[in-house]
């Protein structure tokens, strides 16, 4: 042990000296991850550093900028935000409304006459409008992506006879929803076991979500004044119904998802490999396609629209635009409290200038050409840079040039998501609605209405906030502090009145001194936070602004409108506790029993069985995510399955973590791999049973089975109790694995099947900063664990053997 300590010490020393210091001011950028092919970004950043030698740019992805706001929010609240954040534009107003982003108007006004200055008139109007909240500008738009239909001519040609037979023209893509479904029906090919071989059209593969289809129906997601959420409308319902129908003819959402999820890596893109006939996607895919399949024979067209819209009839009779698209893109913003906002602004200015954009494009182009690939520029948010870029980098291959042209043409028919303070929630709920409806868990109307209710509640609470009584959080804490001091003083007087001898007094003093670390910790880290948590649970509190009293509203929510989610979360962990914990115990015990009878090799086997249980959770989650991959070409388990059970019994391999029915069993299987931890305890228990008991039983003529039930089990019962109680408590707080597996947004695992109470709490607390609601939930978790533990301990009196009795 001593050598080990020295080893660690030496290691620390060595590591500590390797840290280097830099004099340049850092500019920390989140949401831009440099990769092996991101030479444009590299060049842009290095050129900036050359021109502004006082700055050093640090690019980090941090999972930020995309759909996961947790990290950014905790860093802003914690006062250690990055300097620049690359943020999806639709959620800018969300952050701005909470005061999390800095308004850029002063910077813009100051530098607008510089050659690199940011000028509103240079930008496409829709992109600029998305960055404005309450009349202030909070971000500088980078790109302006839009979505069009890509169709694989090769697949169309191969199936031309079948298409003709169905009365469809194989020479042109579908233009309407009913056409796209008809084409998809003919082009889709299934394997004998029902899985997809070729998919005609997957409604949400590529990049459409519900937004595109709903925009095509002229649905809006918010009322004009931004106070009413209209996620549900007959138009949106029809759009969602189209998605449901599209999935139905592919054999269901899960079947399609298993298919599309299995193509990892850009070179395996199913469109390139003729596995998907049509998809609606953004201009970013052009670079990937040209990189991996420069000779792909594809065509483009505007995304198919509702039939009525195409034929201009019904409510679309007076519609101006026949085809439309959904526009999005990213912006750069500066979080409030950024330590280096001036440097951040300089960087943003440089990156969004035409010069900067051209430096990026040229470097990227040089890299691609060197690799023998064609560079296709992305569509930017300013007209000038687009014009220059297309003049310089017009694709040579005609179909790529046509695709780019179509993207640019459709930019004029772009629709954007409404700026709102609940943009993130609206997005998340809309994703959930898609999943619930397409999986058939809810009707489209129900799914949309449920999502709408959640968003509406958030909007209401935003607008009602000002009217709520202000909560001075210092008062309850002062009261708690006074109570604590009172208790201490009372205790002090009691001890004094006890008239202890000198020695006893000394012992008392030392006693308190010795336990003082715990007392301090108890006050600061346990009872204090508990009081705080209780107080928070009666407030609406987002940390960035002051708290307001809401009384029992949070608890009402838990047992009212949020009941389904809460029940689902507890139901999920109950499932894990009810099936996973006993299975784990039995596996551990079985190994221990066999190991206990072995005459040799015990140490080796013990090590081998124990090893998986010390593999860090995150590492084993990453590993098992791959082992349980639904794609049988990739996942170990399904590979074996397709070679054995599939031909033997005709069973389709399950899609494990990607379908609701199998996601929890996947966690249980993962858990069984770690059953060796429990095994060690069983083994110790078995060794502790006196051999004389067995000898006596043998003499009495008890067979091994009787011996097991009448000696081994009673003697092991305290360990069984310990393992059960600890196992249940651990499972009730399941977080790490479900966090890794849940995906980035929308539901927690397929159909919320991986939603656990602690994950629900975490998301509410750190994604939406609903501290009040999360605190109330924490108390429910506490109550449930308390009840379960007390129940187990009470019941244990009946079956646990104690030596005294």
């Amino acid at each position, binding site marked *: 042990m001593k050598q080990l300590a020295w080893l660690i010490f030496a290691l620390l020393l060595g590591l*500590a000296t390797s840290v280097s210091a830099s004099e340049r001011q850092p500019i920390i950028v989140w949401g831009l991850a440099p990769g092996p092919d991101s030479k444009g970004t*590299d060049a842009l950043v290095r050129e900036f550093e050359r021109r502004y030698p006082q700055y050093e740019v640090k690019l980090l992805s941090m999972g930020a900028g995309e759909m996961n706001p947790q990290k950014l929010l905790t860093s802003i609240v914690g006062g250690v935000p990055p300097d620049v954040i690359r943020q999806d534009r639709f959620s800018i107003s969300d952050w701005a409304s909470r005061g999390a982003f800095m308004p850029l108007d002063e910077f813009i006004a100051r530098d607008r006459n510089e050659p690199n200055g940011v000028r509103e008139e240079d930008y496409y109007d829709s992109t600029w409008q998305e960055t404005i909240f309450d009349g202030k500008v909070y971000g500088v738009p980078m790109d302006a992506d839009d979505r069009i239909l890509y169709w694989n001519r090769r697949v169309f040609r191969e199936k031309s006879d079948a298409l003709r037979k169905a009365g469809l023209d194989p020479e042109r893509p579908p233009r309407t929803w009913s056409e796209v479904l008809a084409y998809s029906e003919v082009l889709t090919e299934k394997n004998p076991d029902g899985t997809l071989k070729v998919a005609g059209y997957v409604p949400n593969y590529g990049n459409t979500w519900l937004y595109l289809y709903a925009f095509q129906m002229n649905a809006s997601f918010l009322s004009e004044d931004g106070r009413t959420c209209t996620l549900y409308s007959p138009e949106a319902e029809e759009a969602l119904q189209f998605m449901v129908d599209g999935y139905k003819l592919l054999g269901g959402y899960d079947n399609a998802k298993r298919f599309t999820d299995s193509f990892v890596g850009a070179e395996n893109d199913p469109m390139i490999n003729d596995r998907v006939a049509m998809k609606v996607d953004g201009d970013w895919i052009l670079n990937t396609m040209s990189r991996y399949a420069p000779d792909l024979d594809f065509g483009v067209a505007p995304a198919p629209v509702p039939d009525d819209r195409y034929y201009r009839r019904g409510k679309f009779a007076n519609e101006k635009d026949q085809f439309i698209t959904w526009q999005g893109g990213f912006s750069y913003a500066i979080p409030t409290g950024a330590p280096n906002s001036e440097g951040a602004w300089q960087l943003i200015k440089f990156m969004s200038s035409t010069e900067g954009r051209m430096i990026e494009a040229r470097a990227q182009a040089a890299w691609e050409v060197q690799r023998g690939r064609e560079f296709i520029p992305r569509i930017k948010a300013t007209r000038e840079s687009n014009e220059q870029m297309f003049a310089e980098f017009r694709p040579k291959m005609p179909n790529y040039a046509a695709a780019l042209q179509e993207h640019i043409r459709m930019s004029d028919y772009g629709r954007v998501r409404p700026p709102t303070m609940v943009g993130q929630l609206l997005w998340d709920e809309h994703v959930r609605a898609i999943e619930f409806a397409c999986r058939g868990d809810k009707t489209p109307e129900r799914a949309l209405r449920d999502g709408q209710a959640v968003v509406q509640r958030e909007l209401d609470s935003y607008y009602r906030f000002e009217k709520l009584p202000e909560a001075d959080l210092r008062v309850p804490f002062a009261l708690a502090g006074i109570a604590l001091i009172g208790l201490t003083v009372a205790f002090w007087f009691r001890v004094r009145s006890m008239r202890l001898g000198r020695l006893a007094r000394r012992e008392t003093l030392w006693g308190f001194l010795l336990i003082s*670390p*715990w007392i301090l910790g108890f006050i600061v880290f*346990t009872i204090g936070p508990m009081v705080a948590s209780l107080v928070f649970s009666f407030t609406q509190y987002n940390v960035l602004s002051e708290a307001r009293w809401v009384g029992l509203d949070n608890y009402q929510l838990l047992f009212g409108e949020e009941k389904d989610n809460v029940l689902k979360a507890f139901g999920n962990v109950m*499932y894990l506790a009810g099936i996973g914990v006993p299975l784990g115990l039995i596996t551990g015990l079985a190994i221990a029993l066999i190991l206990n009878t072995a005459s040799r090799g015990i140490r080796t086997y013990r090590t081998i069985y124990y090893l998986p249980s010390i593999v860090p959770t995150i590492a084993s989650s990453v590993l098992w995510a791959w082992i349980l991959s639904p794609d049988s*070409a990739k996942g170990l388990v399904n590979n074996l399955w397709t070679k054995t059970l599939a031909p033997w019994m005709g069973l389709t391999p399950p899609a494990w973590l990607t379908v609701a029915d199998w996601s929890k069993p996947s966690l249980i299987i993962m858990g069984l791999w770690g059953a060796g931890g429990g095994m060690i305890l069983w083994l110790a228990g078995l060794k502790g049973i006196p051999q004389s008991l067995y000898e006596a039983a043998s003499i009495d003529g008890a067979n091994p089975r009787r011996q097991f039930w009448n000696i081994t089990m009673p003697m092991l019962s305290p360990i069984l109790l310990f393992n059960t109680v600890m196992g249940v408590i651990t499972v009730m707080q399941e977080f790490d694995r479900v*966090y890794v597996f849940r995906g980035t947004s929308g539901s927690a695992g397929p159909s919320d099947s991986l939603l656990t109470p602690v994950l629900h709490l975490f998301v509410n607390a750190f994604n939406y900063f609903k501290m009040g609601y999360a605190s109330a939930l924490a108390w429910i978790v506490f109550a449930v664990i308390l009840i379960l533990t007390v129940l187990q301990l009470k019941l244990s009196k009946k079956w646990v053997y104690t030596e005294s009795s």
Partner: protein
Amino acid sequence: MTSNLLFAIGTIGHFVGWVFLASAIFQIARTLSRSGDTGRTASLRSAFGSTIFALVGFGLGITLAGDGKALSVPLAWPDMHPLGWLFGLAMIGTVTFALQSISAITVAERKSKIVGALIFLAIAAFSLWWVMRGDNPFTLHRGHIDLSAGAFGSILTLLIATAALMGWVGRSAESSERVRGVSTQLTLFAGAALFMIPFAWLMVTSVKEDRDIAGTDGLNWVPKVSQTVPYFNDNNPLFEAQFRGRTVQAALERVVDAEQIELRVLKPMNQSGYIFKISKNEAKRIPNEAPVVSLDWDGVAATAFVQEDLPDGTRRVERLESGKPTGEVRTVPRAETEAVRTVGARWRNYPDALEFLPPEANMGLTYLKNTVILVVLSVIGTLLSCSLVAYGFSRLRFPGRETLFSILLATMMLPAAVTLLPQFLIFRSFGWIDSLLPLWVPTFFASAFNVFLLRSFFQQIPFELEDAAKIDGCGYLRTFWSVLMPQVKPALTVVAVWTFLGAWNNFLGPLIYVNSQENMPIAYALQLFMGERAGEPGLLMAFTALSIIPVLLLFAFSQRYFIEGMSLSGLGGR
């Protein structure tokens, strides 16, 4: 339903048949190798019985579940709600208790058995009711393993050989122990292999090329690497040079003058894009790694290496003759070339994975450093504070001790979730966000479970020891440190091991508190890596392997403490 039931019976019969067949062979081998006549007759009789049972079993299998195929193994699997299984178990319990109640001797015993049977029956009834509510309460998946005559023969031979060997080994009563020993070893070995497969898969995947992981040819256990040859490409010269104190690979950006050139860094990845001036002498020209391909060269299969990929979808290749360039160059479409790959490991995944990390991560060493700091400080803090507090609670008498200790016990049931949010706000007010402080400082304030565990160990030490120390003039601290601490070493190991694993595994903490690379521990870094590099599983698995290796190494060095510690904690939970 009836056909399903019959099929299930047939399947069970089939497998029972195999068991009895093995048993028959075992008995025959035993008979042949035995000497005494009495033993022989008994063995022979049971061999005969087993054969009859085997024949009946196979007969049932073939007639009920054979589906007309003689050489096939029938399979059946009931697919039902988990509670369906509970129903089955509860029914077994009911029947067991019912039978026991019949054979019970005393009235009281009978009564308790009947109560037990009724409880199980109630559970069974409830789960049956629950299962029948669903749409598809029960389906029986059925099928066959079709065996070729050869496969059937080899399984049979293997079975006969094993059973015969065991029969021979276990020919005497004493040596039947040996049979049991051998089968135990076999079971343990099979189980151990199963438990090791994920590790093996991790290692193999971590040295695969990406194309082998998600390719169309399916999963393979033998990694292959693409062959390359060194080639000096004058259109795209590569250099090795010193930049900011480290060796980098760089491409030529432009020639400044006769003396100097400007280079653009390519590798390591986290320095990529930097442009720097350097004198020509200091930059060493290095060859590109040109991929070797096989192709059709005027009707003859040949190998060549790719000089350059051209933007029009073709590549310029030079033919290779037994590994040497021939100077014959031509341009061919990319689709007509096939990469030459040989069996081998792509170890480069490991350095590549680390080079991807931002420069602050210092090739992952920063993560390791942070994790080690976190773990060491947590272990020290926990050991110190918990043993002091446990000492206070167990060996000293003072007013309020019992009350305070029951409060401590009560906090064991408090889930971390309750205090999570307020603690975040407390640490925020300390200005500790984006540091490791919130992760280890609390360990210096004792945790309930460890105090409880240590206290029960302290209590077992006889008071005489302490009294002797007191007489010698030791103060409380001295007694604690020199007399009591050495006595509870095993318990301290337990606490150290649990704290170590807990700190190494901690993910939620860093997820909330740590933002910058400088403070990031391994667990969180791995999760971020997973998000960024999902498309490059080779690198991801290499990084995963690297994150596991330190724990396994430490385990290898201190296995005894781990396992002893873990064992003790179970007993401490009594």
